[in-house]
């Protein structure tokens, strides 16, 4: 548990009730979280997962609660890591209330979870979200009847329009009951459930529900059990489980799920009326095209072009121009410099703040002036893609391509995010199934995916070179990406992660949702990444003052000059590039504008720096996610590969006499 959770623990001790937010993936849970807490859930909401568990405070009519957002689940009999995480939260946190957010048009699946919550003995408020979509398909739910059948409160919401939120808040305030479900799983199951229940320790959730999980073969409970029971009891439980499995003759988990599904079906049929499909023909058509093996491609290209225009041209061009050049360049920096020069007598401190590697003149200018506008526009574009439901379709289109790199199509999410911010992308690799997939994705992100800050500068530079240069650059990066992935897939043992994706309906992205998600990510960025950039700048400052920069320069130059045939000054760009990706590219850009680089040199330097090691922030994130050993190995592999490839390109261009 992280520091945030520990903090909340303290709050709990003060007597605050905890409310857990549970639901299937892609039902709008995190938006509801945002509406209730006024806070934005952190990071990824890929149809599939909330990457981290978020906590927020709600204040309703004076009563305060702590709201816990959980990863989306399809079942509390865990079959994926997210489901395990959510199940464990319920097991260890004992929420006073569970707010289950469900998809109004998919009541049956929603109820499968409600049933399990009831069996666990948890009070539930059922929030049927996306009622507008259900209506569009001619689906209406008799909420009163459902309330009666469940014995629990049922509200309906349309989250982006804030409809029904008041009713939801009221329902949370009221005393909620545990839904009254009693399901019979058959004589064999019931017998063994009883036997195991008798052996289990008293706990936050109903022991019978735990017994059912154990019978279903849930191995993730092993650790929890070991710490609470002695060896004898553990053995007894295990032998009961085996006996039951043998007697049943078919997978127990499947049996349990089928019975639950049947019960859910019964209830659904009695409260839902379907009045024929009314979903807009147009949207259906667009949806079909977006996944079509042939027509899906132009759609994909169109989307990519849209992103390029919005992020690359508007974000990296117009906005950066405004903020960095005008705001910082013409107003803030000169102003700061003047003020510091006046107030601070010590030249060292002066330099620290407004010098060449100054905290304001370099760190803040670049963090706020360049990176923030670009990443914000990127996050907006990304949130639009997410909310519209296009991302999983993108995963389908790119699945085959990703298979070559040893990844499943799901990896399209972190890879595309990597074009925005590599640090965030590495974090998002959590949604990939299997260590192998995550490792390969992280490696490829570090090697061949340039982040938006860098990308902006690189594309700018390439466009002032020639179309050929851009083509060569793009080809080089693609080739390295595909080949490295392919090679990594061959070398690393294990199977590719499974491809199992839920495809939500295509919908018009709701501005509110986009705003909530973007705000969340930008906040994350400001809190997590910017301090690292400041740290990086500080390190540069220290290196410079200790004249170590010159030393590194001397050591690295021969490589840069000899192998890559670049002027010595370019070394600086590479060194700085580690601490700040965009600096590297920007440094080269400056050299190019000053006429210090020939077109060929420019191209070689650009390709090399694109492949070069990731920035400090990303590096720290890789350590955090994959471990120090892996991170260092990646560093050790990427550095020579980038330089070797650059050298190769240089050789090829010169010997083939290609002018760019």
């Amino acid at each position, binding site marked *: 548990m992280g520091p945030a959770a520990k903090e909340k623990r303290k709050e709990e001790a003060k007597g605050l009730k905890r409310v857990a937010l549970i639901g299937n993936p892609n039902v709008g849970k995190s938006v509801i979280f945002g509406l209730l807490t006024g806070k934005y859930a952190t990071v990824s909401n890929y149809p599939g997962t909330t990457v981290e568990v978020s906590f927020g405070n709600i204040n309703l009519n004076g009563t305060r609660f702590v709201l816990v957002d959980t990863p989306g689940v*399809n*079942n509390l009999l865990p*079959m*994926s890591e997210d489901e395990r995480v959510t199940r464990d939260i319920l097991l260890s946190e004992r929420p006073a209330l569970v707010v289950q957010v469900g*998809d109004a*048009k*998919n009541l*049956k*699946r929603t109820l*499968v979870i409600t049933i399990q919550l009831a069996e666990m003995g948890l009070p539930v408020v059922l929030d049927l979200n996306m009622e507008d979509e259900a209506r569009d*398909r001619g*689906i209406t739910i008799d909420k009163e009847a459902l309330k009666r059948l469940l014995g629990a409160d049922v509200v309906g919401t349309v989250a982006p329009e804030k409809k029904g939120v008041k009713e939801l808040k009221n329902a949370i305030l009221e005393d909620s009951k545990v839904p009254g479900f009693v399901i019979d799983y058959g004589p064999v199951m019931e017998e063994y459930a009883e036997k195991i229940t008798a052996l289990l320790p008293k706990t936050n959730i109903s022991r019978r529900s735990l017994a059912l999980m154990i019978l279903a073969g849930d191995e993730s409970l092993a650790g929890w059990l070991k710490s609470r029971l002695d060896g004898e009891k553990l053995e007894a439980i295990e032998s009961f489980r085996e006996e039951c499995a043998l007697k049943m003759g078919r*997978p127990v*988990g*499947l049996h349990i*799920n*089928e019975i639950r*599904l049947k019960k859910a079906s019964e209830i659904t049929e009695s409260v839902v009326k379907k009045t024929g499909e009314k979903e807009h023909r147009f949207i259906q058509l667009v949806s*079909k095209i977006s*996944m*079509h*093996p042939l027509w*899906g491609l132009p759609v994909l290209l169109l989307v990519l072009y849209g992103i390029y225009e919005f992020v690359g041209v508007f974000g990296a061009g117009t906005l950066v121009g405004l903020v960095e050049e005008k705001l910082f360049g013409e107003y803030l920096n000169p102003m700061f410099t003047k003020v510091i020069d006046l107030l601070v007598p010590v030249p060292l401190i002066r330099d620290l703040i407004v010098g060449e590697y100054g905290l304001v003149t370099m760190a803040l200018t670049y963090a706020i002036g360049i990176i923030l506008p670009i990443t914000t526009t990127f996050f907006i574009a990304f949130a639009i893609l997410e909310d519209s439901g296009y991302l*999983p379709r993108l*995963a*389908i*289109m790119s*699945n*085959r391509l990703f298979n070559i790199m040893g990844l499943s*199509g799901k990896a399209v999410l972190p890879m595309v995010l990597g074009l925005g911010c590599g640090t965030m992308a590495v974090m998002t690799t959590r949604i990939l199934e299997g260590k192998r997939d995550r490792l390969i994705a992280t490696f490829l992100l570090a090697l061949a995916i340039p982040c938006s800050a860098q990308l902006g500068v690189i594309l700018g530079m390439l466009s002032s070179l020639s179309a050929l240069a851009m083509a060569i650059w793009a080809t080089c990066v693609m080739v390295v990406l595909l080949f490295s992935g392919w090679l990594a897939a061959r070398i690393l043992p294990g199977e590719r992660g*499974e*491809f*199992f*994706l*839920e*495809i*939500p*309906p295509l919908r018009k992205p709701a501005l509110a949702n986009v705003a909530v998600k973007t705000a969340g990510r930008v906040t994350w960025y400001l809190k997590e990444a910017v301090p690292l950039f400041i740290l990086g700048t500080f390190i540069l400052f220290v290196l410079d003052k200790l004249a170590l920069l010159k030393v590194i320069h001397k050591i690295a130059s021969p490589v840069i000059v000899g192998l890559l045939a670049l002027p010595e000054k370019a070394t600086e760009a590479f060194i700085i590039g580690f601490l700040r990706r965009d600096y590297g590219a920007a440094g080269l850009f400056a050299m190019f504008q000053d006429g210090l680089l020939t077109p060929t040199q420019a191209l070689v330097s650009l390709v090399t720096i694109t492949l070069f090691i990731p920035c400090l922030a990303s590096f720290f994130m890789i350590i955090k996610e994959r471990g120090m050993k892996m991170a260092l190995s990646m560093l050790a592999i990427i550095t020579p590969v980038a330089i070797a490839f650059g050298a190769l390109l240089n050789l090829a261009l010169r010997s083939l006499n290609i002018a760019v």
Partner: protein
Amino acid sequence: MSDELKKRAAPETEKAQFEDEALEAIWEIAEQKKEVTFAELNDDLNDEQGVLNMVADGLINVKDGAVEFTDEGKRRARDITRRHRLAERLFADVLALTDYERDACRLEHAISPEVEEAICTLLGHPPTCPHGRPIPRGQCCKLYVKKVTPLVVSMMEAEVGAPYRVVFLRGPMIDRLASIGLVAGSDIKLQQKRPSFVLTIDETTIAIEEDVAKGIFVKKHETENGK
């Protein structure tokens, strides 16, 4: 059971089993257009008396050292071969077993004609066994020429857009499929096969790959009109 079927009914005595095996062996050799010699057959089966009995029972003739079927013998050989190879198909395709030789050998003696036809229909009147050898046609296969499709197919062979009902599931991820409502008995629709399999169950749409799709066996809805 009609007289005809009684005649074809799988015999259960040891002698009958031996005869079946022998007839099948002869059939196989004959398939490869090779001549079956008496000496060879004795070597294979290691029971000269048994083979001679078969001549006595009117199942085979021996002419100039070569073994030939009588009409009766040929009919029986054909039937038993058909059952054996259908059993192999059943074990290999539907049950996904790799070590099924012995069981297929056993099953061929125990299947009744009705069961044989049901298996053949279920599998869609397969023309060959898993080893590629032809399965002799049966009555049901003749009708098949008029009927369009086999009864139960895997998602791999299903038609895009047609309404199906899931008959059974096997393979990886059936737990996760169950989680989203895909179980035996659910109504399912195939949206596309490439670049991935996309299917819809109620209001849920998922994308999966071939390895999972080929384990979902479905049956077409017969009653629906324009649903």
